[in-house]
C-alpha cells in the first residue's frame, strides 16, 4: 500500500513527534509513505481567512505534485486535510480556478487524486482486526478519550469517512490497542484552532472545558489526530497536567515499538506517570 505523504508544516516543527510516530507506525503497518517533493504550506487558517483563492491555489499546487506521483494523499494534519479537500472540490467545480492553477504550475489538473486523513487510511486500509493481531503490548492500564476535533469529520456535509457528530474510528483503533476508551460528548468540540496566539484567553477557556470533561469521563489522557488540537490542548490547559497524545503514539506503544519514549519526551505535558501506570496495568 503506497500513499503520497503530505506532512504539512507542523509535523516538521511543533508536532514533530506526530511526524516521527506517523512514519514509524505506517512502516510497521505496511503503508509506504512517499513525501510529496517540494510541497508547500496549505495556507492553514490564515490562507482562507484573508484570501480564499490564495488558499485554493496553495493547496492546489500540492495536489498537482501528488498527481505527478500518481498516488492518493495521506494527511495527518486535520487542517491541511480540510484545506486540500476544499481546494480539490473547488478546482473540480471551477474552470477559472483550474486555469489559474494550471497557468502558474504549467501542469494539468486531472482531479483524480484523493486526499485522505491518516486516521481514515489506517482505519479503513489496515483495519481494526489486523491491528488487533499486530498488537504486542496491549495498553490495558490506559484510560483514554478519543478527541477528533473539528476538521476530521466535518469537511463533511460532503462525503466524510466517519460520522459527523459521533465518530467512532479512533475509538475503535484505541480499543484494538487495548485501551479503555471512555465515553464523552466532546469528541468533535473545537479547541480554538488558530486563535491560540492572538486570542489565547478564548482558547484557554475552550481547552479547560475539554480537559475537565475528559477528566470527568474517567480518562487519564486525551488522544488526538491533529497537530493543532494537540498543541492547543497542551499549551493552553492552564497547568492541568493532563497528557495529550497522538493516536499514532498510542499505536506505536501497542505495537511495542522502540522509538516510543523519544516521541513522548517531546511533549510539553509529561507522560511519565501515565506510561508508568500502564506498565503496572
Amino acid at each position, binding site marked *: 500500500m503506497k500513499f503520497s505523504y503530505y506532512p504539512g508544516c507542523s509535523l*516538521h*516543527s511543533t508536532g514533530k513527534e506526530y511526524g516521527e510516530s506517523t512514519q514509524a507506525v505506517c512502516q510497521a503497518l505496511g503503508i509506504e509513505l512517499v513525501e510529496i517533493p517540494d510541497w508547500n*504550506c496549505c495556507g*492553514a487558517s490564515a490562507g482562507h481567512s*484573508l484570501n480564499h483563492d490564495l488558499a485554493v*491555489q496553495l493547496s492546489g499546487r500540492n495536489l498537482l505534485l501528488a498527481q505527478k506521483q500518481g498516488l492518493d494523499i495521506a494527511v495527518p494534519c486535520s487542517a491541511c486535510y480540510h484545506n486540500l479537500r476544499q481546494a480539490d472540490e473547488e478546482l473540480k467545480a471551477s474552470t477559472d480556478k483550474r486555469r489559474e492553477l494550471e497557468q*502558474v504550475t504549467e501542469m494539468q489538473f486531472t482531479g483524480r487524486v484523493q486526499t485522505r486523513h491518516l486516521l481514515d487510511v489506517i482505519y479503513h486500509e489496515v483495519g481494526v482486526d489486523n491491528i488487533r493481531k499486530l498488537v504486542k503490548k496491549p495498553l490495558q492500564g490506559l484510560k483514554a478519550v478519543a478527541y477528533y476535533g473539528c476538521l476530521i469529520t466535518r469537511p*463533511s456535509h460532503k462525503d466524510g469517512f466517519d460520522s459527523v457528530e459521533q465518530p467512532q474510528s479512533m475509538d475503535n483503533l484505541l480499543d484494538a490497542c487495548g485501551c479503555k476508551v471512555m465515553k464523552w460528548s466532546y469528541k468533535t468540540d473545537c479547541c480554538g484552532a488558530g486563535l491560540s496566539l492572538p486570542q489565547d484567553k*478564548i482558547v484557554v477557556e*475552550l481547552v479547560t472545558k475539554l480537559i475537565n470533561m475528559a477528566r470527568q469521563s474517567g480518562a487519564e489522557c486525551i488522544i488526538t489526530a491533529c497537530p493543532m488540537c494537540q498543541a492547543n490542548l497542551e499549551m493552553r490547559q492552564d497547568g492541568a497536567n493532563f497528557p495529550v497524545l497522538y493516536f499514532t503514539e498510542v499505536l506505536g506503544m501497542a505495537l511495542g515499538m522502540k522509538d516510543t519514549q523519544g516521541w513522548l519526551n517531546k511533549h510539553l505535558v509529561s507522560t511519565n506517570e501515565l506510561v508508568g501506570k500502564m506498565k503496572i496495568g
Partner: protein
Amino acid sequence: MNKGFALQVTEKSHENVNKCLQCLKCTSGCPIASWMDYKPNQINRMIQMEGKTKVLNSSTIWLCVGCQTCVTRCPMKIDIPHLMDTLREIAVAENISKEPNITIFHQLFLNSVKKWGRVHELELIGLYKLKSGQLFADMQLGQQMFMKGKLKLLPEIVKDKKGIKEIFKKVK
C-alpha cells in the same frame, strides 16, 4: 444605508443568505459565539438588511475559526464559514478590523509562506510579538518548545520559490 452590500456578498461568496430561516442552529453550536459581538445568525440577518458597517466592524468575522459546525448543522446548508471568509476579505480591502491582533497574525503567517513556501514558526512568533506588542507572553512556553526541538531556528525553504511567488502574485 449602504445599498448593494447583500448583493456584493452574494456575488463574491455565491452563498444565498436569504435562505436563512433564523433557526439558530449555527449560533447554538458555535464554540465561539459567546465571545462574538453579533451571533452568526445575526450576521446573516444584518447582511440581508444591508448592515454593511456593523458587519464589517464586528468581532464575529475575525473570531470565527472555521470549525464548520454551523454549516454541518444548517438545515439550509448556508456555508457560514465561507461567508465569514468573504466578509473578512471585504473588511481587509476596506482596512477595517475589530480584532487587529488576529488580522496581524494571519498577515504575518501568509508573509512567511510567501517568503519560504512553508511557515517558519519561530520567525512568525517573533514578528507577531513585535507587531502586536505582546512581547513577553508565553516566554516560558516558547523556550520549552525550542529546547524540545519544536521550534526551528532556520526556515524550511521550498525550492520552487518562483512558483510560490507566482501564486501570490496571481491571486492578488
